[in-house]
């Protein structure tokens, strides 16, 4: 709750810092290897990914996947795309839509689905609140 209030009190400069804090928070969840926020055009807004993973190509693909899910949901008339989870044998990719792009988390297979989904939802709520306030205040 305090984090949400903090989000509501953000000014423009703090919002830049806030996205970095959100990514850091996600990346430090148990069994989580990294996190990033990417713009819909694939630009990396903030990232904490393990060494050895090239962030730009990963972000380009994550944004393309996010846009594909958004466009698909809209075309099929089922409302806005919200979240997706894709699990391989050796890791899981979480992706959520937000007003500034896509929030992505990369986790080990044993990561708690509930915990990461909850953290992702909280991240999107924080971004929503901070950006909605900025839009209405501008």
């Amino acid at each position: 709750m305090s984090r949400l209030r903090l989000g509501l009190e953000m000014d423009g400069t703090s919002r830049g810092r806030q996205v970095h804090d959100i990514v850091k928070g996600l990346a430090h969840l148990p069994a989580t290897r990294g996190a990033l926020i990417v713009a819909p055009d694939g630009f990396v807004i903030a990232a904490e990914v393990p060494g050895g993973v090239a962030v730009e190509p990963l972000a380009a693909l994550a944004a393309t996947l996010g846009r594909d899910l958004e466009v698909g949901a809209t075309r099929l008339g089922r409302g806005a795309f919200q979240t997706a989870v894709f699990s391989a044998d050796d890791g899981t990719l979480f992706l959520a839509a937000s007003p500034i792009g896509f929030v992505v988390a990369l986790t080990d297979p044993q990561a708690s689905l509930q915990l990461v989904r909850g953290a992702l939802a909280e991240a999107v709520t924080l971004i929503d609140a901070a950006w909605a306030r900025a839009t209405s205040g501008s």
Partner: protein
Amino acid sequence: MRPTLGRLWWPGRRRRPRVPAALFAHADRLRRQGRYAEAGRLVAAGLTGDPDNLTGHLLAAYLHLAARTIEPARAEFRWVLARQAGHPRALLGLARLALEDGDLDACRAALAQALQHHPEFPEAEALLGAIGNRHPLSAVSASPRLERLRLPPLARALLVLAADGSLLTARPSESKGDGDHLARALSLAGATLRRAGWGAPRRALIEDGEETYFVRGDATLTLALALPRTTQIAQGVLEVNRLWAAAQHALAVRVEAPAPASPPAERPRRVS
């Protein structure tokens, strides 16, 4: 009163009209923080001062994409390419829009052109790798038994896809459109997972405003069940596992069906 106060606090600071280049540089910094509305205002102001500025139009394209206003974004990318053919970022932008439209040929062509001008372009390489992967033709074919799988009462749709993304069954048949969408999303997810150093997707949950797709797959088959958004995840996973086992059985029965009767082989004769 306020201007006086302003002068008192910042006596040496006078507001000067900023040159477009400075406005674009500031807009780009804001864009990198996700502050699109503020960036948009600066880009608009910059383009008023310098309407033919390439950077300004490229930024405008990105900001339109960020706002999900696709046609203006496409127009801006084209504007940039009309002035600088082979601009890699504009080509990448158009390639991604072509992919959203389902035009894979146009997407490949734009990416190939970008890489021709700039061979070291990781994002274009990654995207080309993702859409260039052709799946092997499936050895599994549709079975009427798949049509008889028992669906949960609240299920909206069941899709079964072969390894090449072709649809083996769609129930109800109106959900066929979901099959193409799902196959492409899983293919992109596979490419993204590979970029993270992992294997192919085996399970997925895709949630939109109304429903959740519970997906399970392996190298030969993908099964996706659409349930209402309110479905508990554990319940959805149980249902998709049950259908997965049933689909495997249905297809195995078909594959292992007895071969057509053939004439009995001649017994070898004893040679005395």
